[in-house]
Each structure stands twice: as structure tokens, then as C-alpha cells.
């Protein structure tokens, strides 16, 4: 397959959580963690998904990683519908790296046993599997001897390397990284990020990089998707988003990050309303938006193409 072809595509993907009343167990409301998400991810690129806590980024990752069943919609992987079941030959081709390296490894299993597990599912013999474990440990920059260690003997950064190795060991084509560095200290973060970039170069893997850290997103990604209330409100190339942020929410996010230059002024936009409401017939950002118009009260904005590879869900940019 050629570079730039679409490896993963979602069509109107939805994942709702039901909130039930205490006594009668009737559905009171939905939390629309992922709502009507349609994205295309090209082979070899890194798409960063950014957004605040509760915006649905992790749920999106879990649905794509087949850990949660979507409520509605479709996931196409290499043009095959994998929404509900993954064909046998695609086993291990989509993998997920978790945020918390401290609890992602079973404390009672040696590193080698943790790493070998995904291979055993694929009916790979033990001897061959152990050779692979050694190879992948080296790839993530750990000595082979760590195989016989227990997780508690490793530091956070080392554990995260093990977790990355466990994801890579099945030779995935698509890797979902769910805030892989947010639990690590800053010096370790950069090591892991550099490692992830070099692995990507070597193995030609497509990344979906979930993060709330815009600096990390800028370092890792080719494209950025901004999520708010389960929707992707703005998506586009990295330079498009960072140099020309359009959606008011994207601007808020960008302004929230202090500049490393101590002389520059920092004026973050702090919204007054912080609860997220899942409106169906008006813009979901309306409670926080300082630029809201009458139109925003009546309709939900849809994707508007502003320039090449830059879409935004906001009426400010509608032509009519």
C-alpha cells in the first residue's frame, strides 16, 4: 500500500454512557463521550487528539482499540469493517498503550511473562516468543536481562518502555497512545517521546496520540484533532491548528498554555461555565463561548472546510 492511503476511518462513531436514576433505573441522561466522530487517519501519520479531561479522548481511544463497543457508527481498518469483530489475520494489528505504567503491568508476572502474553494468543511458540521479547526490549532501550525482573523493580520510565514493547511485539500497524507520558516526570517524558518517534520512523506505524499536553502534541503529530464534549470541533494539519486556531475552544486551549518566555504576558481565557452539556440542537460550546451568535442557539454547527486540511465546527466561519 502506498504512503498516504487511509488506514483507519470512522463513520459517525458514537459511544454513549447511560446515567440511570437510582431507584427506578430509568435512563436519566446520556454522557456522549464520543458523538458523531468521523475521522480519517492516513497511513504513517500521527494524529494527536487533544482536549480537556472528560472530552472523550480516552473513550475514543478505547473504542478504536476494541476495548469498548461503540453505541453506533462504523470503524473501518484498511477498508474492512471491524466495528464489532476483528478478523483473525488482523489480531494484534491495532494496539493500545495505556497512560499509567504503574498499574498496567501485573505485579505478579515477570516482564517476560507480561510481554509474552499477546504472542501466546497468536499461537507463537514459546521459544520464538522469548526471542521476540528480547528483540523488542532492546528496541525500547532496555537490556535483555530485564526479562526476569518484576515490575516493581523498574522505574516509571522503564515500565512505560515495557508497556510500549508489549504493544509493539505483535507488530501493529496502528498504535493508540493514550497519554503515554502524562504519568512520568518531565525528563523521562522526553526520552519516551523521542523513543516513540524513532520507533515510528523505523517501523512505519501510524499513531493516534491522545494527550492534553499541547507541547507534546506539537512535537509528535502531523495533524491535530481538538475534541470537546465528544465531538471533534477542529481538525487539521499541525501548522494550521497552531498558527491559525479558529474554534473558540481551540483558542482557549492554546491560551491556557503559558509561554516559556518569562517576559511575555500570559492571559489565559478562563471560561466561567465549566460543566459540559450535551446539547442536541445548539452548539455544545455555547455556555463557554464569548463569541456566540443567535445562530448558535438554533443549530448545531457542522464541519466547515476553511482551508486545505483544516475543518472547524463553528458558525463563525460559515459562508452564509
Amino acid at each position, binding site marked *: 500500500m502506498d504512503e498516504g492511503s487511509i488506514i483507519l476511518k470512522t463513520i459517525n462513531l458514537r459511544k454513549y454512557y447511560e446515567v440511570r436514576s437510582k431507584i427506578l433505573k430509568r435512563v436519566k441522561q446520556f454522557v456522549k463521550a464520543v458523538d458523531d466522530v468521523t475521522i480519517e487517519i492516513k497511513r504513517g501519520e500521527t494524529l494527536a487528539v487533544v482536549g480537556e479531561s472528560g472530552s472523550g479522548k480516552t473513550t475514543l481511544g478505547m473504542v478504536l*482499540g*476494541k*476495548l469498548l463497543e461503540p453505541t453506533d457508527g462504523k470503524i473501518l481498518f484498511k477498508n474492512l469493517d471491524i466495528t464489532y469483530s476483528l478478523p483473525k489475520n488482523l*489480531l*494484534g494489528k491495532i*494496539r*493500545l498503550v*495505556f497512560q*499509567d505504567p504503574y*498499574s*498496567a*503491568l*501485573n*505485579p*505478579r*508476572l515477570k516482564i517476560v511473562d507480561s510481554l509474552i*502474553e*499477546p504472542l501466546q*494468543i497468536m499461537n507463537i511458540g514459546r521459544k520464538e516468543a522469548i526471542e521476540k521479547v528480547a528483540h523488542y526490549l532492546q528496541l525500547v532501550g532496555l537490556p535483555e536481562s530485564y526479562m526476569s525482573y518484576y515490575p516493581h523493580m523498574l522505574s516509571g520510565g522503564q515500565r512505560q518502555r515495557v*508497556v510500549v514493547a*508489549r504493544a509493539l511485539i*505483535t507488530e501493529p500497524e496502528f498504535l493508540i497512545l493514550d497519554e503515554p507520558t502524562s504519568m512520568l516526570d518531565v525528563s523521562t517524558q522526553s526520552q519516551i517521546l523521542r523513543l516513540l518517534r524513532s520507533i515510528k520512523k523505523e517501523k512505519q506505524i501510524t499513531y493516534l496520540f491522545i494527550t492534553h499536553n499541547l507541547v507534546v502534541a506539537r512535537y509528535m503529530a502531523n495533524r491535530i484533532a481538538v475534541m470537546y464534549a465528544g465531538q471533534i470541533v477542529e481538525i487539521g494539519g499541525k501548522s494550521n491548528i497552531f498558527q491559525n486556531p479558529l474554534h473558540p475552544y481551540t483558542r482557549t486551549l492554546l491560551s491556557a498554555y503559558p509561554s516559556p518566555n518569562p517576559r511575555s504576558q500570559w492571559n489565559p481565557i478562563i471560561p466561567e461555565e465549566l460543566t459540559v452539556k450535551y446539547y442536541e440542537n445548539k452548539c455544545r460550546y455555547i455556555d463557554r463561548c464569548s463569541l456566540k451568535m443567535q445562530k448558535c442557539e438554533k443549530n448545531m454547527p457542522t464541519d466547515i472546510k476553511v482551508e486545505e486540511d483544516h475543518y472547524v465546527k463553528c458558525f463563525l466561519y460559515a459562508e452564509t
Partner: protein
Amino acid sequence: MTAKAIHSLLEIKRIRYGLTLFNILLVTSLAVLLLSPFKPTETTYDTLKEPLTQSEKGWSYVLGTDSLGRDILTRVSHAFFLDLGVGLIIVCISGAIGLMLGIIAGYVGGIIDSVIMRTMDILISIPGFILAIAIASTLGGNLWNAILAISIVSIPIYARLSRGLTLSIKENLFVTAAREAGLSNFRIMIRHVLPHVLPVFITQATLELSNAILYFAGLSFIGLGAQEPTPEWGLMMSVGRKYIREAWWFPTMPGVFMFLTVLSINLMGDGIRDYLDPKKRLRG
């Protein structure tokens, strides 16, 4: 690693005392079992002899004889292995079933959880010993039926315990990670949940072992467990009860043996529980 664990286990007083007591009983019983000239079921004309009466076979009747002239020490020692063995069998059967049901209920959840746990609630709502009597008398009084009855009665304790533990273990990210790696639910239960349930489970099983022994002796006492002439503590006490005025040692000795055995097991069980509770471990 294991040697270290054993060493720190032995640092707890209760475990040391319990283990010492248990070993004394074990060695005594084993020695009597192997060396005694008396047979546990062989009757003689030396009926209701006082402790330390000299016998024709060279040994004295250390703990006296019963109404049929059998040496009580020999019978009590045989009963030690019988009762301990029965206790272990009960713990194994009920423990294995309870553990399995509990892990399945906790891991799978939903309707299966409700069905299993409500059944356990029904079992637990009837007093254990009464239910055991009911089951044993329905099936007919013999050793194996008593084992079965007590096993059924003991299942809910293990099921509840392992369900609770499973519920909290399930929340760990490594279980989700295993699911992500494509492991089947069965494999996750065996590889990731079971090893975390086992330590607590074993503590509970140790404590339950003494209960099982007491229940079994109880059933035998009322005639629903072991039958004559099997040497069994409860049965011996039940027969000896009638002779308590003439021969106090007849019902007393099996009782003392049972008391010491149960005490030693309980001490060990409590000690292991303390060992697993980090707060108590600090105090020693």
C-alpha cells in the same frame, strides 16, 4: 523470596505457637499410629480402665480405655488423621467450588453474578449447622455424606470472599491491558485474577479448616457422620457421654485432642491473617 516469606511468617508469635502445638499433636499421633501395640478397633476385656493402667501388651493404657476395652490414645491418634483429612477434603471441595463461583460472579457480573450470589445468600441465611444436619440426614448418615453436607454449607464464605476480591482486582489497569492484548476471559481469570485472590483465600481456608473439623465432629456426635467403629472424636465423645460418671476420661480425651487441634489451626490462621494485614504486621 519464599524462604524470606516463611521466615517473616515465623516471626509472628501466634504462628509460632500454633505451629509448635500442631507439630506436637502431629508427632504424637504419628508415633502412636506407628508404634502402638493396640489396634483402634480391636475390643478387649480391659473395659473402662483408668489412664496409666498397665496392659498385657507391654504398654500402659496412657489415656485409659473405652467401654469396649479399646485404647483411647490409639483411637484418638487415629482420629487426628481422620478428622484432619476430612477437614482438608471439605476445605478443598468447598474452597475450589466457592473460589470458582466467586471469581466468575465477580468477573462476569450481570445476571450470572446475581444468580450465583443470591443462591449463596439463600445458603448463608440458614444456620450452617442446621443446614448440614438437614442435608446429611436427607442423604443418610455416613462419612461421605457428612463431608458433602459440610462442603455445601461452607461454599458461600469462599464465594463471597473471592467475589469481593475479584471486583477490586478487576478494576486494575493490568486486567484491561490483558483484555486489550486479546486474552480470553478465562485466561484473564486464571492468569491475572486468581493469583491476586489466592493469598487472602488461603488465609480464610486455614480458618475454615478448624470450622470444618468442628462441624464434622458435630455431625458425628449426633450420629450423622462417621459410624462405629471408626475412631472419630465426635463419635467417641457421643458414646463416652453415657460413661461420664464412671469413666471421665472416655469422653474427655477426644475432646481435649480436638480442642488442641482446632486451637493450633486457629492460631496459625489468625497469624497468617495478621501477616497479610500490613497495619498489624508493623506492631508485631
